[in-house]
């Protein structure tokens, strides 16, 4: 079987099961994130935005409307950290 490889999946399965890394962001974005997890209407609105820039802009707007203070850069940093955490989860 020399030269053979181990089969992954279309989505890039690397292990038999995922490991998971809890998300927590050290910025003003985190309280808003926890707030949204409890608010169905906000979830539905934000989940419908797939464009990254539009998502960030709307998240900042909604945050301000509900009394949370954070900047677009906080959301961008959270997205980058979340992406890394997700990739790490799959390679753990």
């Amino acid at each position: 079987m020399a030269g053979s490889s181990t089969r992954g999946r279309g989505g890039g399965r690397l292990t038999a099961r995922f490991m998971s890394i809890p998300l927590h962001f050290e910025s003003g974005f985190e309280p808003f994130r926890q707030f949204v997890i409890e608010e169905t209407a906000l979830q539905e609105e934000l989940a419908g935005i797939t464009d990254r820039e539009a998502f960030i802009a709307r998240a900042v707007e909604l945050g301000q409307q509900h009394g949370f203070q954070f900047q677009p850069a906080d959301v961008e940093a959270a997205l980058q950290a979340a992406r890394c955490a997700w990739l790490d989860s799959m390679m753990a």
Partner: protein
Amino acid sequence: MNTPPDLRGWLPVLISKGTAGPVVEWCRFGTRRFTESFFESTVQKAMRDPFHLLFRHQTPLDTLLDWQRESPGMEPRGFIFHMSRCGSTLVSQMLAALPEHIVLSEPPPLEALLRTGKHGATDDQRIAWLRAWMSAISQPRHGEQRLYVKLDAWHIFDLPILRRAFPETPWIFLYRNPVEVMASVMKVRGMHLVQDLIDTNMPVIASPPGQRLPEAEYAARVLAAVLRAALEHLGPSGGRAIEYSRLPEAVITEIAPHFGLDLTAAQIEAMNARGPFNAKSPQLYFEPDTQSKQQEAGAEARALCAEHLDALYWQLRSL
């Protein structure tokens, strides 16, 4: 009993080991369906969206039990066990062609829950968690009415506990001429066919003291163990063996009736429209590759089949 959080629209896409025990990771899937060839491909695709990346969150495993009491989902209407490389993805994709179906293809959370026994969970706990996870993942979001699960090849060794958890669920076992399967796995191996790569419930494959079996022989022996397990359970547990050579027609003529599906002409048309495409690469047209696999199989593959697999294959064919 705890009051569960409102998890409507959230699906338990991941089970993992937390600091205080297993945890469930929830992703708000909205109306996204599991239409990719594998469960995790759908999850990966969802994770490209900023919302899913940022708002996934974890709860203790027992939240599944609370949520099941609050919002019971469906029981599986069919399990698809298989030998590997024998058309199981084609079957699951044809079932997924109907929007009233939820089809979960080799979902990693199911594998994680089955393995909790290795970390001290009792069978009763595992059964409760399996039922609660299935209930949560099958919450209708599109008016779906039926749930089907395609398992990993090595889950045939977990069939007894799956049958205890879901005694009413009919099941099939897909198999194929072992020469063709060996021709495929000798090019690209499945994870369970690599010695010591993953933790499964498979019987120990003995090797000479201090030595490892040659890779191809190990793969052949694992495939033989899979076929033996299928043969052991097919009679008493009411499963049905389906050979690759009968696909894709058998999805309509044998598997659907076995799963209690009474298909309309329009549903058959929709499923057949999905069938002719290569299930793992939908951009490619599906063609049975029996002839090419037979040509690819070398002397080593044929010898291993003769020693370990052919007799089991013929037993399956005789059922």
